[in-house]
């Protein structure tokens, strides 16, 4: 069966909304995809979410189960703030799925490193890994503070190993998930079956890659740069290209393998703004 991709907006009413935290800084919106459409969404792929006459922003899929498609949004800019005020039944336009996502294999031991909002595409990844009965799933989730450990209540009850970290020590261990990654790799004999996944601040992603490189497993790492500026989604407008090898975040990514990322000089160093100019990360 052919799968659909929406290039023109599919406009649907929001079917479900839920604040993920008491501070109401993060919300999950769900829409129900009509039965006539067959969607196949790789974890790590994203949709363009359209608020007519306001803007359209790229948001990673945070779950897709039984035709219910979920996106988790934090109030980062004007458009996301508007989305936080949506009510059930309000209309939302969707285009996608766009980009390349995470590749998964059942025989792997998956180590997932999440930082802050980076957990959202990784949440959908975890459900996919569970579905294909991946050998083992280990989640190392970090955030600034306890209230930003999104989905922690949900994920800790899944059949996966979880370790939580906060910068201020308000939940789990005080510190960063990358410390645990380092320890795990040092204590693992067989590195061949490992698959490392990550999403979050690029500084953290860069650390993951460095740790992987020391263990010579950079080709087993997949990291999402979903936090970067994206305009067109088709790889043609040129706004999101990574120097020096010239790959687009929107179409060649947002998920890249570690052995590709180690060739990208911008990775962990420079971002690009909407006008195309560079800034230091």
């Amino acid at each position, binding site marked *: 069966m052919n799968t659909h991709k929406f290039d*023109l907006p599919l406009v649907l009413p929001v079917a479900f909304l839920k604040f993920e935290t008491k501070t109401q800084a993060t919300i999950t919106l769900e829409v129900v995809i009509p039965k006539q459409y067959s969607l196949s969404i790789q974890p790590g792929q994203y949709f363009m979410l359209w608020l007519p006459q306001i803007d*359209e922003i790229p948001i990673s899929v945070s779950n897709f189960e039984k035709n219910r498609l979920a996106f988790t949004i934090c109030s980062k800019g004007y458009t996301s703030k508007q989305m936080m005020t949506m009510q059930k039944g309000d209309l939302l336009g969707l285009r996608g799925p766009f980009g390349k996502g995470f590749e998964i294999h059942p025989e792997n031991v998956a180590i997932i490193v999440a930082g802050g909002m980076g957990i959202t595409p990784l949440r959908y990844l975890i459900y996919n890994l569970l579905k294909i009965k991946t050998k083992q799933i280990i989640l190392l989730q970090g955030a600034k503070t306890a209230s930003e450990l999104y989905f922690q209540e949900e994920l800790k009850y899944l059949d996966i190993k979880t370790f939580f970290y906060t910068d201020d020590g308000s939940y789990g261990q005080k510190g960063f998930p990358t410390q645990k990654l380092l320890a795990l790799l040092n204590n693992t004999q067989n590195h061949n079956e490992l698959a490392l996944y990550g999403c979050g601040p690029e500084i953290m992603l860069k650390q993951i890659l460095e740790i992987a490189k020391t263990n010579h497993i950079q080709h087993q790492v997949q990291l999402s740069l979903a936090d970067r500026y994206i305009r*067109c989604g088709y790889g043609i407008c040129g706004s999101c290209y990574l120097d020096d090898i010239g790959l687009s975040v929107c179409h060649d990514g947002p998920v890249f393998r570690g052995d590709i990322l180690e060739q990208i000089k911008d990775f962990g160093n420079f971002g690009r703004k909407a*006008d195309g100019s560079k800034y230091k990360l």
Partner: protein
Amino acid sequence: MSSLKIAIGSILLRNPLILTAGILGTTFSSLNRCYAAGFGAVTTKSIGIEPREGYANPSVIYIPEIDSIINAVGLANPGYITYGQELKKIDSEVKYIMSIFGSTPDEFQLIIKYIQSRNLVNPPKAFELNLSCPHATKGGISVGTDPEIVYEIVKGATSVSRIPIWIKLTPNITDIKSIADAGVRGGATGIVAINTVKAMLIDITTKKPILANIRGGLSGRAIKPIGIHAIYDLYEYLGAKTPLIGTGGIWNWQDIIEYILAGATAVGMGSLLFNYNNLELSVNKLITGIKKYLETQDMSISEIRGLAHEHAQI
């Protein structure tokens, strides 16, 4: 295999395929990548005086029914001073055209003079003047729709430029020949036609325009016949002496041949790269197709230029 080498005035290219302005041209790395993929030349994103963020999204939408793309990016660019840094890093073998825009002859001159003063190791082969900007004083009309303004801008640009000046023509005009004529009188030595065709989309569920800017420009398959018509007209009017770069809706090698038969010296393309899988393969397929056609016809690329006109004269 026959050679696809061509000359656009004094500019020699390994083949007639030019990556058009506005596609993949914001960064030195994407320009390098496209040239390495096989294009004869690549064109930068249109660069202006001030940095511009462009319009909000949706700004680029593929329309599957007509294999076309509607866009209203809004000339997003980092400004000519910042972009000068980008040009320094373009690989030395890359042949590229720098697209620039402005509202007045002075603005075009300022950018040209600045870029020339940078002593770039690999300077552009030509400046392509994007004439889609609103005029500074004439009530918002696009500068490319008034022959007198076009003449002033091109004359100003050629008077300071050490390299060829090309102009990109809009199809959104009654008589494209009058603009081309003004450009040639001003000293342009390459005519690129066409730019995007005015277009818009409305979502019937929300009853709202889809593009954030409401109005945009159409590129892709739907506009190819419009581009062919423009090149046919321009070749008929200007003759073989003026190089023409046929642009608009090229989707396969047959489209390229069609443009050359209409009178194009070279072709510009970009929209067909949307959702690319393998840039090298895409460009290679086009080149192989053209070469095979020329072999079958036992003709060179310059020999088939404008051939459609001979039939018309019978």
